[in-house]
C-alpha cells in the first residue's frame, strides 16, 4: 500500500503531470497519423528519455503507448482512415456514425470506452498480473493455432454481408502472408527477387493503402464527395454520447475490457484480434445485431474498450516475466533496460517504486486522453465538413509520407498506392478489406504455430485435440461457426412460418 501511495505522489508532481500531458498529446497525434504506429511512437521517445529520471521516462513512454491506441480511433471514426490496425474495427461503425453527422458522439464514446478499457486493464495489471501471466505461458503452439483460426473465423463473420467475399479476402491475406523468407527452411517464397519483400509484405503499407488511400480515392473522385451525406450536413451533432447509450453499453464495456486484457496477456495476439473478437461478441449479444456496421455506437464501445484494455494486458507478461507480448512492449523493454531496469519478477522488488509509478501513470494517462478526447472532439469533428476533394489529397499525402517514413523506402509508397487502388475497387464491389489485413497479421502466427505443432507431434493432427486449452479454443471456433448458421436457419424458418 505504501508503495502505491509513493507511486501516486510521484505521478502527481508538476513535472510528471507535464510529461503526462505532453506524452498524451504526442501519442494521440502519432496514433492519428497513418503510418505512425504506437511502436514507432514509443521508439521515437526513447532517445528523449536518455537524460530523464527513470520515473519520468516511464511516465512518458506509458502515456505515448496508451494514448496512441486511442489516437488511431479519431481518424478511423471521422475519416475511415485508421491510424493503426487496432482501430479497424472502430471504423466499421464509427465512420457510418460520422457520415450521419454523429462523429462527435462517436469520438466521445470512443474516449469513454477507451478510458474504461484502459482502467480495467490497469487494475488487472495491479491485481492479478503474476497468476495471469502463468496461465498465458501455458499457451503452446497448438493453442496459438486455434486462437489464430478463431480470429479469422470471427473477422470473416463480422464484416461481410456475404461471408464468401470475406473468405476470399481472408484467403488473399493468408496468401500474402506467405511472402518472404520461410521461418523454418529459409526459402524465399514469392519474393520475385525483391529485397524489400524478404521480411514479408509489410503490414502498414497494406493497412494504409486499403483504408486511407482508398478513402482518399472515395473522397476525391466523386464530384460532390465528402464525409457527410445528405441531411447530415445540416446536423450540428453532439460531442458527448447519450447517457442512455452509455448505460446500454455498460455490459459490452465490461466484456470487451476483459477480452482485451486477456488477449493482451497472450504474447503476439495483438490489439486488432481483441477488438474484432469483442466487436463480434457485442454483436452476438446485441438485441439489434443488424445495426452493426451501419452506425451502432455499441460497436465503437466494444472495439475501443478492447483495444485499450490490451495496453495493460500486454504489459503483464512484459513486466512480470520479461516476455514482450508485441512490438511496442519489446521497444518498451528497451526503454526499461536503458534505465537499468531488467523486466522480470525482480522488477516488482528491486525497482518497485518505478514500476508502480509506471502502472499508476497509466491510470492517469488514460484519464488524460479521455479528458482531451472529450474536450477536443467538438473541434476535431469539423474535419468532416471539409469537401472531399480538399480532404482527399491531404489524406493521400499523409499516407504517402507516413508509409515512406516506415522504412525510408519508395517501395513501400508504391505498395501503399497499389493497395489503395485495390481497396478502392474492393469497396466499390463490396469486398471487405478488413479480413485481408487481419489475415495478413494472423497468417504468420497461424503458419509458424501450425508447423511447429506438427513438427513436435511428428505430423499427428490429433495434437490439436489432446490438450484441454486446445479443446476449449477448438470448441470456441466450432461455436462461432455454428451459432450464426443456426441463427440464420432459425430466422429462415420464422420467415417461412
Amino acid at each position, binding site marked *: 500500500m505504501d508503495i502505491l501511495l509513493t507511486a501516486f505522489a510521484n505521478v502527481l508532481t508538476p513535472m510528471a503531470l507535464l510529461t503526462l500531458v505532453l506524452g498524451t498529446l504526442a501519442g494521440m497525434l502519432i496514433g492519428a497519423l497513418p503510418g505512425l504506429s504506437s511502436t514507432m511512437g514509443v521508439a521515437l521517445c526513447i532517445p528523449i528519455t536518455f537524460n530523464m529520471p527513470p520515473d519520468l521516462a516511464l511516465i512518458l513512454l506509458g502515456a505515448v503507448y496508451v494514448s496512441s491506441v486511442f489516437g488511431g480511433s479519431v481518424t478511423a471514426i471521422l475519416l475511415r482512415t485508421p491510424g493503426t490496425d487496432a482501430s479497424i474495427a472502430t471504423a466499421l461503425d464509427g465512420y457510418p456514425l460520422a457520415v450521419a453527422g454523429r462523429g462527435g458522439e462517436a469520438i466521445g464514446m470512443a474516449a469513454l470506452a477507451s478510458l474504461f478499457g484502459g482502467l480495467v486493464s490497469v487494475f488487472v495489471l495491479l491485481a492479478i498480473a503474476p497468476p495471469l501471466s502463468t496461465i498465458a505461458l501455458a499457451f503452446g503452439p497448438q493453442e496459438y493455432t486455434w486462437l489464430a483460426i478463431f480470429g479469422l473465423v470471427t473477422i470473416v463473420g463480422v464484416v461481410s454481408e456475404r461471408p*464468401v467475399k470475406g473468405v476470399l479476402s481472408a484467403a488473399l491475406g493468408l496468401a500474402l502472408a506467405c511472402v518472404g523468407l520461410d521461418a523454418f527452411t529459409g526459402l524465399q517464397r514469392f519474393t520475385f527477387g525483391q529485397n524489400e519483400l524478404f521480411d514479408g509484405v509489410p503490414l502498414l503499407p497494406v493497412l494504409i493503402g486499403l483504408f486511407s488511400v482508398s478513402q482518399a480515392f472515395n473522397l476525391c473522385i466523386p464530384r460532390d464527395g465528402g464525409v457527410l451525406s445528405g441531411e447530415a450536413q445540416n446536423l450540428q451533432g453532439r460531442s458527448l454520447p447519450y447517457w442512455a447509450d452509455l448505460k446500454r453499453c455498460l455490459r459490452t464495456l465490461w466484456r470487451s475490457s476483459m477480452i482485451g486484457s486477456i488477449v493482451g496477456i497472450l504474447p503476439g495476439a495483438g490489439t486488432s484480434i481483441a477488438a474484432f473478437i469483442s466487436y463480434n461478441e457485442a454483436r452476438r449479444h446485441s438485441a439489434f445485431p443488424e445495426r452493426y456496421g451501419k452506425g451502432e455506437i455499441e460497436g465503437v464501445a466494444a472495439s475501443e474498450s478492447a483495444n485499450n484494455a490490451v495496453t495493460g494486458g500486454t504489459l503483464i507478461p512484459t513486466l512480470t516475466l520479461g516476455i514482450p507480448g508485441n512490438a511496442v512492449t519489446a521497444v518498451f523493454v528497451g526503454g526499461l533496460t536503458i534505465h537499468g531496469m531488467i523486466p522480470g519478477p525482480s522488477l516488482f522488488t528491486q525497482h518497485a517504486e518505478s514500476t508502480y509509478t509506471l502502472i499508476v501513470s497509466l491510470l492517469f494517462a488514460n484519464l488524460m486522453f479521455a479528458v482531451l478526447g472529450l474536450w477536443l472532439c467538438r473541434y476535431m469533428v469539423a474535419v468532416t465538413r471539409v469537401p472531399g476533394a480538399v480532404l482527399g489529397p491531404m489524406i493521400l499525402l499523409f499516407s504517402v509520407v507516413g508509409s515512406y517514413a516506415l522504412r525510408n523506402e519508395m517501395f513501400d509508397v508504391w505498395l501503399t498506392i497499389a493497395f489503395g487502388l485495390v481497396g478502392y475497387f474492393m469497396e466499390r464491389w463490396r469486398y471487405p478489406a478488413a479480413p485481408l489485413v487481419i489475415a495478413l497479421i494472423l497468417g504468420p502466427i497461424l503458419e509458424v504455430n501450425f508447423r511447429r505443432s506438427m513438427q513436435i507431434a511428428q505430423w499427428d493432427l490429433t495434437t490439436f485435440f489432446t490438450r484441454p486449452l486446445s479443446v476449449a479454443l477448438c470448441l470456441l471456433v466450432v461455436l462461432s461457426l455454428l451459432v450464426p448458421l443456426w441463427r440464420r436457419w432459425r430466422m429462415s424458418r420464422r420467415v417461412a412460418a
Partner: protein
Amino acid sequence: MMMLQRIDRAVALAGGVLCLAVITIGWGMRGDAGLFPIISASLGIVACLWLALTRRQEAPDERPAPLDGPRLTLWCLSLLALLGLMEPLGTFVVLPLFLVFNLRWLARLRWLPAVVLAGSFSLVIYLVFARLLAVPLPMGVLAS
C-alpha cells in the same frame, strides 16, 4: 446478367487463376515450406468456386455509383506524377505542386486559397516529419 454478379464472376476467375499459380509454385517448394501457401490458396479456390456458382438477387442500393472517368484519370495521373517525381525533384517540391493541382482542378478552389492551403499543409508535413521525427524524405533538387 446483373452488374455485381458479372464483376464477382470475373473476380472469381482472376482469383482462381492466382490461387492455382500459388498452389503450383507451393507444390515445388523445399520441405514443408509450400504447405501453408497451398492451404491458403486452396481456401481461395473454394471461395472463388462458391462465389462463381452462387446466383443471388442484386438489391438496388448495392450497385456501385457510376465512376467519374475523367476525374479518376486526372487523379491517377497526378498520383503517378507525385510518386515518379518525388525522388528526382524532392518531396517538398512535388508535394505542394500535387496539392495545388488537385485543389485547383479537382476541388475547384480559386488560386489563392489553393496555394495558401498547399503551402501551409506542406509546411505541417515538413515540421512533423522532416524536423520533429527526422524522417529522411527525398530532398531531390533541394538536397544541396
